[in-house]
């Protein structure tokens, strides 16, 4: 059992949790994730470690309602417990100091940038964070990210906050020299369509780009192969070799198709889980 120390609603469909997990906090690195289970008979789902505090022995996760399990998680409050939390899994984001790093976040992906941007700023990299969402109220952790990165730029589809338009539009402007200027490396974490669009934006410029793939996972320890992603023509296990991969090498078509393998079953499970905390409005961030 892992105790929830704090729970904070970030948007109608996303919630932040601080968990008492001293062993995980002690060894977590940016880009890694945990596998968690809410109840007996429940699914094991991967959730990124958004932040960790080694001294306090806590980790922070941000969960976005997508289906049955995430909905059950989001119904929990401070003082409740998660049945199982295992981690940290996966490899840390592997990027040598480069100069100017741009993190691009959509949906829960923005949370995943938190500890990464803090570390890169501390290492002396120039850091810019671009956050995207459909509308103002779906932007998460903008203040927290502003504290750990040199600049935060917000993009909304409807223009209700920051720039109107997609994150890729803003990224293209940076590459062209606007704002904080051309990044030397980009790390994009968010919906697959967004990550693919980022990959296409940086490709012509030869900017090193990493994306955090989120395939379906079962064990998260390299035992099932269900999380395989094709990278540079090779099958790689996202839970061990990833989840971050070179965006220009990833086969997004296959990855997107594989993540939809259980739509029918997910709907059944989701209906059963009920509207514990309000029905999810689909992906809370822009599609690309």
């Amino acid at each position, binding site marked *: 059992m892992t105790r929830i120390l704090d729970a904070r609603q970030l948007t109608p469909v996303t919630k932040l949790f601080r968990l008492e997990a001293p*062993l*995980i906090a002690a*060894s977590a690195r940016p880009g890694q994730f945990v596998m968690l*289970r809410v109840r007996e*008979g*429940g*699914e*094991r789902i991967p959730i990124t470690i958004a932040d960790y505090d080694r001294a306090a022995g806590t980790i922070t996760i941000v969960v976005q309602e997508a289906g*049955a*399990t995430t909905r059950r998680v989001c119904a929990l409050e401070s003082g409740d417990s998660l*049945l*199982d*939390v*295992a*981690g*940290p*899994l996966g490899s840390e984001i592997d990027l040598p100091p480069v100069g100017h790093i741009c993190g691009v976040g959509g949906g829960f992906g923005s949370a995943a940038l938190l500890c990464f941007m803090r570390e890169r700023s501390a290492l002396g990299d120039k850091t810019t964070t671009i956050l995207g969402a459909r509308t103002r109220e779906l932007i998460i952790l903008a203040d927290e990210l502003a504290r750990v990165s040199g600049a935060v730029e917000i993009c909304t589809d409807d223009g209700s906050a920051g720039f109107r338009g997609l994150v890729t539009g803003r990224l293209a402007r940076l590459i062209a020299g606007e704002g904080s200027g051309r990044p030397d490396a980009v790390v994009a974490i968010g919906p697959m369509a967004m990550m693919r669009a980022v990959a296409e934006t940086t490709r012509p410029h030869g900017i090193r780009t990493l994306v955090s793939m989120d395939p379906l996972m*079962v*064990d998260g*320890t*390299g*035992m*099932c*192969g*269900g999380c*395989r992603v*094709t990278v540079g023509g090779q*099958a790689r296990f996202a839970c*061990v070799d990833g989840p971050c991969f070179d965006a220009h090498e990833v086969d997004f078509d*296959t990855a997107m*198709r*594989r993540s*939809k*393998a*259980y739509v029918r*079953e*997910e709907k*059944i*499970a989701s209906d*059963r889980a009920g509207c514990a905390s309000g029905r999810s409005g689909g992906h809370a961030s822009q599609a690309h």
Partner: protein
Amino acid sequence: MPVRRTDKTPMPVQGAQARAHNFLEVNDGYSIAHAAFEAERCLRCQHPVCVDGCPVHIPIRDFIHEVAAGHMAGAARILRSANPLPAICGRVCPQESQCEAECSMGGRFDPVAIGHLERYVADWERTQPLAIESAITETQKIAIIGAGPSGLVCAGELARLGYPVTIYEALHAPGGVLRYGIPEFRLPKAILDWEIDILKAKGVEIVCNVIIGKTLTLDDLTGKLGYAAVFIGTGAGLPQFLGIPGENLNGVYSANEFLTRINLMRAYDFPNTDTPVRVGKRVAVIGAGNTAMDAVRTALRMGADEAMIVYRRSDEEMSARVEEYHHAIEEGVTFHWLTSPLEVIDDGGGWAAGLRCQRMQLGEPDASGRRRPVPIPDSEFVLPVDNVVLAIGTTPNPLLTRTTSGLATTAKGCLLADDATGLTSKTMVFAGGDAVTGAATVILAAGAGKRAAHAIDAALRANGRDYSTTEASF
């Protein structure tokens, strides 16, 4: 009883029609009369050669003698003295190539049904009240990595010797392949749970959700956590893929994924449980080992109309237990021998629709001594299927070795460990089971765990003599 003394007393089974659609155990187990009758068939050989065939040298003649005399408690004691997992091994050992292969009765008649008797005694034991108390007397504590059979047995043996033991398991439940791989209809989870309860009663601590190499490192265990010795029993859980086109289509699974979804995550009970699995009308399983046989029979139980084995060699080279093969035939599994998969065909929407194959014939023997399958020209054909399950082998998971310095491995990623003691290239770090041998058997894993426990005990007792200078001999 309509059996002759020359024949093995048949195991009562659930009817094939019914059992092909449920997850209840296939074998019902002997009655006391069956057991007594079968035990009487044993010749009580002066030199019980059966024992040579058993990797842990159970005094087979002696326990069978106790069964014949009706002394079940005595039989159980003898069994447990040599094999800590009798209820499990009685069910899953490949007896036909081990103990029963050597049995003297086997020359002219059926060998004695050693496995069935072992199972009988162990199941009898399970109906008895057990008075187990923790007997931890030592102060030096020991860490075990992985709660598969090798780790469980090593822990049990060390606890019996008086050591405080902690098992660290990556998944949320202990058991290793016994939990996530071997299905309920062959090995009911209640039996595994019972064995684990015994371990806990002995004082063994099991900590799940801890991945050594990630949550903690091996050096943390021996360093800041102060364990005097470590046993690695992490198995060989990394699934292999064929690398053929279409392998990443939806509906294609590794056997590990397919079986884990159904056994560990209980997808058979979806939507009461949350993890789904998609089993279509026609399922092809590639391979012919125990894993393949488990996957194909599981597919039937999950509602497939047709479940088939596709194997590039012939039934002679099949490595599955003979009993499982026979059960699979009875349940209606179909077999495509000498058939090699070339490609999984897309239904146009990203799902598997067929398996393009080619026929093979057996050529010259290869390095393994088995005749090499060679393609027959112009023999390609398409099997229409909705699912393809790959059961073509597993290798040790590199998670631990990648994050631990000084742990020597073979080119295939197996840990190097001394045969007799399990000692690895690291001081006071021992290993056994599939992590050392590559995918093998439950009893070999259990035997390795037991040997290592005694080697650890010996090493700790010799501590005064500065064990750190002792080197592994390989």
